[in-house]
C-alpha cells in the first residue's frame, strides 16, 4: 500500500460496520489528497456505498477513525458532512419525486444560479427547473443530483455510481467536469464499475474486497487486470468479444416486428425486426426515444402510431399484463420502478408468477422455492441480506430485476441497461446468460449505455437518433467509434 499523502484531505482508517448478520465493512481505509480523483473499487456488495454513507454521516460506523483536513471528523449527519466540505451523490437518486427540481433545491438549501450553470455544463441546458422530479427520466435525475452537489462547491465530492445510468454523451460531460474539479484543487471519490472511466479520470484506486481495503494503486496503463484480481481475489479472464460467427439475419418470421412506432414527441418513427435466437442491441444518446420505445413494447405506454407484431400477429398492449401474456417482459432502466424494496428477495423474484388472477390461490411453495433459487444461482445474487431487497447492495438489487424474468421463463426479453451498477465479473456472466437465452430460442432487445457491450452481447445493433432508426450495425463492426458516430446521426443511412 502506498503511504497516505501527509496532506490528505480525507483520511479514513479502520472503518467497520455490521448490519445484523452482515459484516459490510471490516477494516476499510481510504486516503484522498487535494486535487485527486480516487476510485473506490470493489465487487457488488464489497461495501463501497456503505463506506460513502459512513463518511457522509448517514450511517454510524462501529469502529474507525476519520480525519478531514487533519482534524478528527465529527460528522454525524449529511448536514454535518456538508459543513466539513463533504458532499455526496448517492447510488440512488435522492430527490423528492412529488416536488419540482427548484423546490428540491430550495429544500436542500442550494442556490439556483450555480445549479443552472452546472446543469448546462453537464449537457442538459434545456432542463426546466419547474419540472416535477417524478416526470424526469433517470439520466436527468442523476445530472440534477450531480449539479446540485457541484453547486455547493464541495471540497470532497463523493460520487457513487453516478454514471451507471447515463448514456455515453452525458458520461463524457460528467468525466470532464469531475476531472476539472480535481484540476482546480478539489478532491473526488469516484465509484464506478467501468474501467474506461477510471482510466480516464482517476489518479489512484483504492480496492475493497468483502469490507477490507486490499490495495491502493496508482492508475497506469495495464493496471486493470491487477485491480480486477484484487477486487475478486483471483484472476478473471478479460471480457473479449468472442468471435461469434456472424449470423445472417434470419429469413423466418420475426418474433417481434415493429413498424413506424410513434409516441409522444421523442419517439417518432421506429421500425425493426427482432428474431428468435437473436440479441438485438439498441444504441442511442440520451433522450432519443429509447425509453418510450421500451415502454410501448412493455405495454406501459400507448403508441400513437405504428404497429407491433408478435410472431406475425398484430398486437396492441393496454397494460403490461398484455405484453407479458404475449411473452414480452421488461427489465426497466430504473430498478426503483421494478422492485418491492420492503419485501424479500424471494417475493420479488416470484411476483410475476402470481400476477394473474388464476394464480391467486395457494402458492406451490416448493416449486416456487426451486425456481427462485435457480434464478438466484444463475445471477449469483448475494443474499446475505435477503429479508428486504433494499438492504441489498445496488448491483445485487439490479440482479433481482433480471432474476424475476429468468424464474418466469423468457420468450422476448426487453433489457434496458440491464448491467447498470453490476460488477465486472457478473457482467460477464450476464452477457453469457443473454447469449444462452438466445441460443435456447429467446429473442432479446438490449439497450445499453455502455457501447462496449454491443460487441460483447449482441448480434446486431440498431442506432436510434431523433426517434428514428438511423443505422443497423453488425456486432463485428460495432466498435465504439462507429457506434458513436451513428448515435450522433452522422452516418445517416436508411435502415434495411
Amino acid at each position, binding site marked *: 500500500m502506498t503511504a497516505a499523502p501527509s496532506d490528505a484531505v480525507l483520511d479514513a482508517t479502520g472503518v467497520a460496520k455490521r448490519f*445484523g448478520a452482515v459484516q459490510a465493512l471490516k477494516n476499510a481505509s481510504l486516503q484522498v489528497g487535494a486535487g485527486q480523483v480516487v476510485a473506490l473499487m470493489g465487487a457488488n456488495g464489497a461495501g463501497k456505498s456503505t463506506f460513502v454513507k459512513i463518511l457522509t454521516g448517514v450511517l*454510524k*460506523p*462501529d*469502529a*474507525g*477513525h*476519520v480525519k478531514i483536513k487533519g482534524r*478528527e*471528523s*465529527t*460528522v*454525524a449527519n449529511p448536514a454535518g458532512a456538508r459543513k466539513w466540505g463533504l458532499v455526496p451523490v448517492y447510488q440512488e437518486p435522492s430527490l423528492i419525486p412529488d416536488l419540482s427540481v427548484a423546490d428540491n433545491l430550495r429544500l436542500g438549501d442550494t442556490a439556483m444560479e450555480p445549479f443552472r450553470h452546472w446543469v448546462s455544463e453537464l449537457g442538459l441546458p434545456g432542463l426546466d427547473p419547474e419540472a416535477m422530479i417524478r416526470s424526469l427520466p433517470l439520466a436527468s435525475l442523476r445530472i440534477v443530483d450531480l449539479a446540485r452537489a457541484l453547486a455547493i462547491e464541495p471540497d470532497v465530492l463523493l460520487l457513487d455510481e453516478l454514471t451507471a445510468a447515463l448514456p455515453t454523451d452525458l458520461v463524457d460531460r460528467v468525466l470532464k467536469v469531475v476531472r476539472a474539479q480535481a484540476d482546480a484543487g478539489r478532491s473526488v471519490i469516484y465509484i464506478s464499475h467501468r474501467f474506461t472511466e477510471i482510466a480516464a479520470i482517476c489518479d489512484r484506486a483504492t480496492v475493497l474486497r468483502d469490507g477490507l481495503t486490499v490495495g491502493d494503486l496508482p492508475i497506469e496503463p495495464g493496471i486493470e487486470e491487477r485491480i480486477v484480481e484484487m477486487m475478486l481475489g483471483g484472476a478473471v479472464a478479460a471480457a473479449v468479444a468472442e468471435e461469434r460467427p456472424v449470423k445472417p439475419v434470419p429469413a423466418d418470421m420475426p418474433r417481434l416486428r415493429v413498424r413506424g412506432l410513434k409516441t409522444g414527441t421523442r419517439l417518432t418513427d421506429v421500425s425493426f425486426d427482432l428474431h428468435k435466437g437473436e440479441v438485438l442491441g439498441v444504441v442511442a444518446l440520451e433522450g432519443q426515444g429509447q425509453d418510450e420505445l421500451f415502454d410501448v413494447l*412493455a405495454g*406501459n405506454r400507448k403508441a400513437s402510431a405504428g404497429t407491433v407484431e408478435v410472431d406475425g400477429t398484430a398486437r396492441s398492449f393496454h*397494460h*403490461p*399484463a398484455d405484453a*407479458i*401474456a404475449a411473452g414480452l417482459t*421488461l427489465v*426497466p432502466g430504473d430498478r426503483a*420502478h*421494478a*422492485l*418491492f*424494496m*420492503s*419485501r424479500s428477495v424471494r*417475493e420479488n423474484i*416470484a*411476483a*410475476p*408468477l*402470481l*400476477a*394473474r*388472477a388464476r*394464480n*391467486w*390461490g*395457494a*402458492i406451490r*411453495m416448493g416449486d416456487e422455492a426451486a425456481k427462485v433459487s435457480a434464478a438466484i444461482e444463475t445471477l449469483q445474487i448475494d443474499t446475505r441480506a435477503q*429479508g428486504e431487497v433494499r438492504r441489498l447492495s445496488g448491483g445485487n438489487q439490479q440482479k433481482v430485476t433480471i432474476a*424475476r424474468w429468468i424464474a418466469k421463463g423468457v420468450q422476448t426479453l426487453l433489457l434496458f441497461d440491464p448491467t447498470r451498477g453490476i460488477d465486472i465479473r457478473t457482467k460477464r456472466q450476464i452477457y453469457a446468460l443473454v447469449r444462452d437465452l438466445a441460443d435456447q430460442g429467446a429473442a432479446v432487445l438490449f439497450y445499453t449505455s455502455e457501447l462496449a457491450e454491443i460487441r460483447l452481447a449482441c448480434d446486431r445493433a440498431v442506432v436510434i437518433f431523433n426517434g428514428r432508426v438511423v443505422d443497423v450495425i453488425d456486432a463485428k463492426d460495432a466498435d465504439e467509434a462507429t457506434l458513436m458516430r451513428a448515435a450522433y446521426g452522422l452516418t445517416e443511412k436508411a435502415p434495411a
Partner: protein
Amino acid sequence: MTMTDTPTPLNRLGRLMVDQPLLPLIGLLILLVAILAVLNPGVLSMFWAGNTIKIAIPLAMLAACQTLTMLTGGIDLSVGTAATIAAYLTATLAPMTGVPPAIAIALASAVVIGLVNGFGVAICRVHPLIMTLGTALIATGCLLVYQRYVIATGVLIPDFLIWLGTGRSFGLPNSLVLFIPFAALVIWAQRRSGFGRLLYAIGANEAAARLSGVRVWQVHLTLYTLSSLIAGVTGLLYLGQIKTASLSLALPLDLPSVAAAVIGGTSIFGGRGGFGGTIVGALILTVLTSMLTLMQIPEGGRRILFGLIILAVTALFIRLTERS
C-alpha cells in the same frame, strides 16, 4: 468520529421488532396483564381471560379488514357500518323472512358496500380513506331510511348467533369456533396465497406490481369486497354478543380496529405487517380498556388516557422500528 460503539439495547430492540415483530408485542401484552394483576389483585382468572378473548374477537376481525387493506396502502373506514348494517338487517328481517334469508340479505348488503368501495378505489382511483368514509355515510343513510319505512315486526336474534357470541365451552368463548379457522386462513393467505402476496407487493410499490403483470384494479376490487364481507360476518357475531339491534352497533369499533392493526405492526403506508400482530394488537387494546375500566376513572378521563396510550405505543413502535 472515533467510536467503537456496539449497537445500543434500543437499537437491538428495534431490529428485533422488524425481524420478529410478534415478540415485543407479546411482551407488551404480558406486561399490561401484569400491571392489571398488581392494580387489582385477584382479577385474573380463567373467566377474565375468556371474557377478554371474547371481547377482542370482533375487534380483531374488523382489524383484519384494516390489516388487509393497509397492506396495500389503503384503509377501510366502512367496516363498522358494514357490520352494523349486517347485524341490523339480520335482526329485523329474521322475524319476517326466517333466519337464513335474513342472513343472506344482510351479507349481500355488506358485499354491496364492498363492491362500491372497490369500484371507487380500483377504477375511479379515489383515495380509500375518502371512498370508504363516503360509502359509510351513504350506507348509514340508507339504513336510516330502511328503519323508517320498513316497519319491523319485531327483532329476532338467531339462537346460534347468541350461542356463538356469548356462549362458553370448557371455559372458552364459543366465538373461537369462528375465529380460529378465520385467523388461520388469513395468516395462511397473507404469505402463502398469490392474492396475499400481491397485497404486500402493491403496498410496497404499485407501479412495480403493474410492471410484473398485476392488474391492480382486480386486486383492489376483490380486496374491498372481501373486507366488507368479513365486516358483515363480524356484525353477525357482534349481534350475538351484544344481543340488541342498534343503528350504531359496531360503529365505535372503527377507529380501534385501525389502532389494533397499527399497534400490531402493520404499516399504514403499506407493504409491511400481518394479521398475527393485529390479533395481539386487539388483545392489547382490550386489556387496556379493561384496565382503565377497573381503575374507576370517570369516562372522560378514561377516553383521554386510552387515546394517549394508543398514541404513545404507536409512536414508540414506529420510532424503534424505523431506527434500525
